[in-house]
């Protein structure tokens, strides 16, 4: 995972804002707005409803006070009905003020209470300051006949607004609690919904990234229709990639065939000529021809192998590799070559397993074993040991050849670097480069050392054990 992350960064894939977070935030903002609006509406409804209730009660009380007005001997009389005030008390502890006046003539109540302007019949309401308080007032006008004269009587009733406000605030608080709860729930749910609807995308990414390096089969997974354009585009891309890989492979095959067949003719003809010519100078020429052919063929092979190893190392396969079986296979493949020099390949094997690309490890060992055979004198023994220890798996190849001498070891792993005792031995100088690259792709390394017993070289391929 860290490797993946590192390589993504190296390739300049910098993520923009994550879709999940963006969507969740967006949904949260919408929900917050809705919650705020609905809370505001509830609050203003509550205030209005509480206000209207107060108005109704005020009007009813004022009307019932006005109802008690009558004229008695030319005098206007009234009885303050208890019920009118108890109705008002029902709302809360609010204070109540009243004033009954005939024109400017105050009959009873608070003289300084000025009600809203009023006409007979309809009660009129108003909110006004009174004695440093804010009160809701209602005025009702009734015309009484006294002494045959129509006297307009105004009944004004006012009440402070604490109770109404309290009710409205209570309602508004409830609404706020509810809004917050709804908001939290909605955010949680939208986060969940976003995540679960993005899950197919993650599954698909996982599916693609766990594929082997050369697996270009189209994606066949089912998924939501929104992902289908992406899936189709990916499949088309893989198709094109597969096509161009196939074309370049075909090209390499064709080119190799075209170049190597004539080289094989030259080499064979030179060998035939070597049998028949007598003169040493001519023989020497023919040997040089053969040598040049072998050199160019070896270089071409190693260059291609190197390219292939780099390619595979870029996107390493991770399968279980049984090192003893792998070592036996490589030893078997090289045994006929060793036999030509009467070199025995002796295997000493104990179980070892690693995780990685078998073809790469095989190639690394092949190059190392090829060196041991190539640089050893005839009738010697090349020992290959496979084993496990200290969290590392190790294949050691030791020979009885000249060894690495004074040459600093690391230097031989560079591209095209060959030792100083190689005259007459065909080689391109890529073998150890390839081996080292294949191993370090696995987090392993190549160690060039001395074979203490036989006096030759000892090359170890070291890999982290699985």
């Amino acid at each position: 995972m860290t490797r993946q992350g590192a390589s993504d960064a190296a390739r300049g894939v910098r993520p923009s804002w994550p879709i999940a977070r963006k969507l969740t935030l967006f949904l949260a903002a919408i929900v917050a707005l809705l919650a705020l609006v609905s809370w505001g509406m509830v609050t203003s409804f509550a205030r209005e409803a509480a206000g209207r209730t107060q108005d109704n009660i005020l009007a009813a009380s004022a009307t019932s006070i006005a109802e008690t007005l009558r004229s008695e001997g030319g005098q206007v009389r009234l009885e303050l009905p208890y019920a009118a005030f108890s109705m008002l008390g029902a709302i809360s502890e609010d204070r109540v003020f009243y004033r009954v006046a005939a024109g400017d003539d105050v009959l009873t109540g608070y003289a300084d209470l000025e009600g809203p302007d009023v006409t007979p019949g309809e009660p009129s309401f108003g909110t006004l300051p009174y004695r440093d308080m804010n009160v809701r007032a209602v005025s009702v006008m009734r015309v009484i006949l006294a002494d045959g004269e129509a006297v307009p009587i105004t009944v004004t009733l006012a009440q402070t607004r604490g109770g109404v406000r309290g009710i409205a605030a209570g309602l508004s608080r409830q609404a706020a609690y509810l809004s917050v709860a709804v908001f939290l729930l909605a955010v949680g749910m939208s986060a969940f919904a976003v995540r679960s609807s993005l899950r197919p995308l993650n599954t698909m990414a996982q599916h693609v990234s766990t594929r082997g390096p050369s697996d270009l089969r189209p994606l066949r997974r089912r998924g939501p229709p929104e992902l289908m354009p992406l899936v189709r585009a990916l499949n088309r891309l893989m198709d094109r990639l597969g096509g161009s890989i196939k074309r370049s492979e075909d090209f390499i095959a064709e080119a190799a065939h075209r170049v190597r067949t004539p080289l094989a003719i030259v080499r064979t003809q030179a060998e035939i000529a070597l049998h028949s010519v007598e003169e040493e100078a001519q023989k020497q020429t023919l040997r040089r021809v053969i040598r040049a052919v072998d050199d160019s063929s070896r270089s071409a092979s190693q260059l291609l192998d190197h390219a292939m190893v780099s390619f595979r190392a870029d996107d390493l396969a991770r399968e279980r590799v049984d090192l003893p079986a792998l070592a036996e296979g490589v030893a078997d493949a090289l045994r006929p070559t060793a036999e030509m020099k009467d070199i025995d390949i002796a295997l000493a094997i104990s179980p070892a397993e690693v995780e990685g690309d078998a073809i790469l490890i095989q190639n690394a060992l092949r190059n190392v074993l090829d060196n041991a055979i190539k640089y050893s004198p005839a009738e010697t023994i090349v020992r290959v040991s496979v084993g496990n220890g200290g969290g590392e798996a190790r294949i050691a190849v030791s020979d009885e050849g000249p060894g690495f001498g004074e040459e600093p070891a690391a230097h031989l792993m560079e591209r095209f670097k060959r030792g100083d005792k190689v005259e007459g031995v065909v080689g391109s100088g890529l073998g150890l480069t390839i081996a080292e690259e294949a191993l370090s792709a696995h987090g392993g390394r190549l160690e060039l050392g001395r074979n203490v017993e036989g006096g030759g070289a000892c090359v170890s391929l070291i890999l982290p054990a699985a």
Partner: protein
Amino acid sequence: MRFLLVEDNAELADSVVQRLGLDGHAVDHAATLSDAEAHLEVADYDLILLDVMLPDGDGRDFLARSRDRINTPVIVLTARSQISDRVGALDQGADDYITKPFDFSELEARCRAVLRRRGGLARNEITLGAAVFEPNAGTLRHGDAVMDLRNREIRLLEVFARNPGQILSKSQLLDRLFSQDADVTENAIEVYVGRLRKKLDGAGVRIETVRGLGYRMSL
């Protein structure tokens, strides 16, 4: 050994036939896959040398198709030495592969290895005086004693045995047997000849030194 060479390039085929002939092998040549099938119907071969790119198809497909009918070992001649290709050839049922251009000593060594593995290496006895030389088993029997010969000794003795009475120069032997092995010098030839002489001692065959010219085996 008797080979069937399946190779579409006539020039290469001719020279391979000629070159293998020098080592005493019989080679039939087929230029196409159908040609090869026709040959396989009428004759038995020790080994098939199969090119991969043929005008009427891919050699490896042929391999996959005919593996269950034809039991003859196959060595694939590939132009590609790429790792994946090698693995592919072996997966498809080839016994071994060799990359073009190839060294004939190596080809021979690989053929022998394949035949030995398949148990198809024919008994081949060459009488050398009182001794019997079996190149395929790598032994020299002399009376009750059976001596094991090393690979290079076998190849050297084979050349002498095939050319009795003929003078073979050191450089001839060198080119023939060890073509590109850099470590083999004319001195080494002397060492190997010395060993053979010791092993043939008392059998009535001698490898004589012909001053300034080389060696000759006289029966």
